């Protein structure tokens, strides 16, 4: 998205000192303790601004509830609720007191399956997004730090990945590799990193043009020191915003791949449930109660991550004008 291509203002603690904080309270401290205190202040300031975004708070609350459900799923419903052979209900039962969301074609409770699906969708979404953002950050920082032929080659590769239709490439990868959750994670991670790489590279270039980088270099700071101690902390806020946005893309892509039958068929996921529903003829028989919940869950989680991401983005860059 073009909105996210704009360079957010880096959260740089020493650039704008909070006026309310008396500095003399801090006695002689080691540099590390100073850094830590400054980071804490930055986080506190970030949270104060984030709190003013109502949509971002709603997103965060929704995510907390869903994460809790995913973590406690084994306590709420037993592992045997996924078993096809010992299903408690009849096939394709409409919602009732015993099965609040009805049953699937094997007689399994859809509510239980939905809860199990939460775990898969969240895990795949998070891991794929982390993989994607990790690749993007690594490539972005190194391409911004080392100029010359390395940057040229790497950015050409990035550009080339950027124009590849993500979904088509992910489908192709998922087809080519064996069907498993890891394949899905890999396919999403490998296809979505270029946007992050470009953002991080732009930010790295702007950070590296500052005098304190020159100072660090003059004092003998090596490549690794500059990249990890000076550039990385400055691109982290941007990376955080990007991660939340990539997670929602990843969750949607995971559902899409599962719906096309390209993920592990033995694992219950929201996208997989939709595929099951379609194959069981829920569409032609008008069983909307089978189809509605999984898609709704996907949309809610993706939306929650998007809301958080946009709130973070607008805290970092108030010019974006995201509505509160």
């Amino acid at each position: 998205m073009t909105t996210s291509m704009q360079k957010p203002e880096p959260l740089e603690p020493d650039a704008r000192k909070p006026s309310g904080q008396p500095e003399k309270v801090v006695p002689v401290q080691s540099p590390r303790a100073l850094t830590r205190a400054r980071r804490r202040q930055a986080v506190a300031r970030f949270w104060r601004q984030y709190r003013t975004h109502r949509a971002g708070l709603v997103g965060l609350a929704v995510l907390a509830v869903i994460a809790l459900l995913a973590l406690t799923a084994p306590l709420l419903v037993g592992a045997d609720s996924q078993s096809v052979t010992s299903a408690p209900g009849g096939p394709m039962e409409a919602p009732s007191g015993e099965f609040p969301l009805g049953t699937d074609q094997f007689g399994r409770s859809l509510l239980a399956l939905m809860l199990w699906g939460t775990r898969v969708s969240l895990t795949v979404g998070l891991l794929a997004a982390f993989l994607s953002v990790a690749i993007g950050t690594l490539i972005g920082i190194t391409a911004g730090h080392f100029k010359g032929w390395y940057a040229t080659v790497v950015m050409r590769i990035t550009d080339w990945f950027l124009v590849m239709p993500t979904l088509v490439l992910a489908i192709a990868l998922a087809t080519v590799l064996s069907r498993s959750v890891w394949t899905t994670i890999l396919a999403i991670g490998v296809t979505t990193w270029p946007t992050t790489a470009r953002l991080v590279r732009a930010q790295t270039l702007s950070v590296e043009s500052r005098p304190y980088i020159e100072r660090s270099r003059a004092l003998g700071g090596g490549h690794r020191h500059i990249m990890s101690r000076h550039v990385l902390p400055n691109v982290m806020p941007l990376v955080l915003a990007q991660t939340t946005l990539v997670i929602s893309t990843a969750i949607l892509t995971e559902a899409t791949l599962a719906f096309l039958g390209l993920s592990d068929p033995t694992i219950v996921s929201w996208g997989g449930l939709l595929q099951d529903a379609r194959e069981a003829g829920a569409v032609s028989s008008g069983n909307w109660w089978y189809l509605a919940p999984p898609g709704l869950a996907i949309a809610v989680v993706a939306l929650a991550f998007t809301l958080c991401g946009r709130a973070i983005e607008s805290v970092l860059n108030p010019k974006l004008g995201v509505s509160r």
Partner: protein
Amino acid sequence: MSSESTPALLKGAAGVESTESGGPAPAGPSARSPRSRSTAAYARYAAGKLAGAAVSLFAVLVTSFFLFRLIPGDPVKQMTGGRQVSTEQIAAMRREFGLDLPLWEQFTQYCGKALTGDFGTSYQFRAPVVDKIAEALPATLLLTGTAFVIYTLLGIWLGARSAWRNGSAGDRANTAFALTLYSVPSFWLGLLLIITLSVGIGPIPGLFPTGGMESGDTEGFDRVLDIAHHMVLPVVTLVAVEYARTLLVMRSSLLDEMGSDYLTTARAKGLRDDLVRRKHAVPNAMLPTVTLLFVNLGTTVAGAILVETVFSWPGLGGLFYQALSVPDLPLVQALFFVFAAAVILMNTLADVIYPLLDPRVGR
């Protein structure tokens, strides 16, 4: 909304063109430097972009060849479908599809043929891949083209309104609704629409066909109506999930313009608020949106894969899905190339056209 903003866009383009055709140089940024130099600079810029696109296209060609060779399973076995075949027959089939050659030779042959527009013969249809794609292309273009026009107009219109009343209840509702639809999986929305409006639940009768492109028993104007009737639900699905992106970009680029002095001037002249927005703010805010439009045009073709699958629309997306399940290597390769090429060409077009629209960029 966009019809009002086109004159301004065209004006920008016309100004640059007149410089290139050797007419009297108009006052403006391009008039400062000698005419020939600016034209030459643009030509160099455009040539660079086109060369980049050519490199990307070749890279896609290479990828499409090697990526799909990794699919497990022997295509010949798939084609014979488990029937008893002698080794001679298998060898003959391998020869027919060029699978007996070493990989490197297959690759050079593939590239050479692709340059002349020959993507080989489909395994499952036993017909030239190009013919299959040409058959499916009109359906895809019709569907994505219609959806593209609708969601672009809708996105620009709603985005402009949203930004103009930034922070109002209307803006918030607008953005929230668009973001919600943006988070919805397109195939799920399609299935829900089929259930409620085609199959019908409860008192709602089936209003629309469940899939396909036409009933096949109509001609002339009736056929047009029939196709339009079949198109309603797929187009609605595509528009619903796609328009948010245009809206958000239009909204943020108009917000960037909001504080500008020229808007204050326009208001000071006594222009109505509505006119200030339509004649002054929106045309300027359109520029970043134009880039997005081209990108959208490229990605919607590939994005329609799911909608086409759900609505059994006889287009490229459905064909891709069908080809993947075999795997029908020549068809998959060619379609992958087509999808990627659409994005690459549209991005390049945006890069080449953008400086013509906005003289500040890329000169």
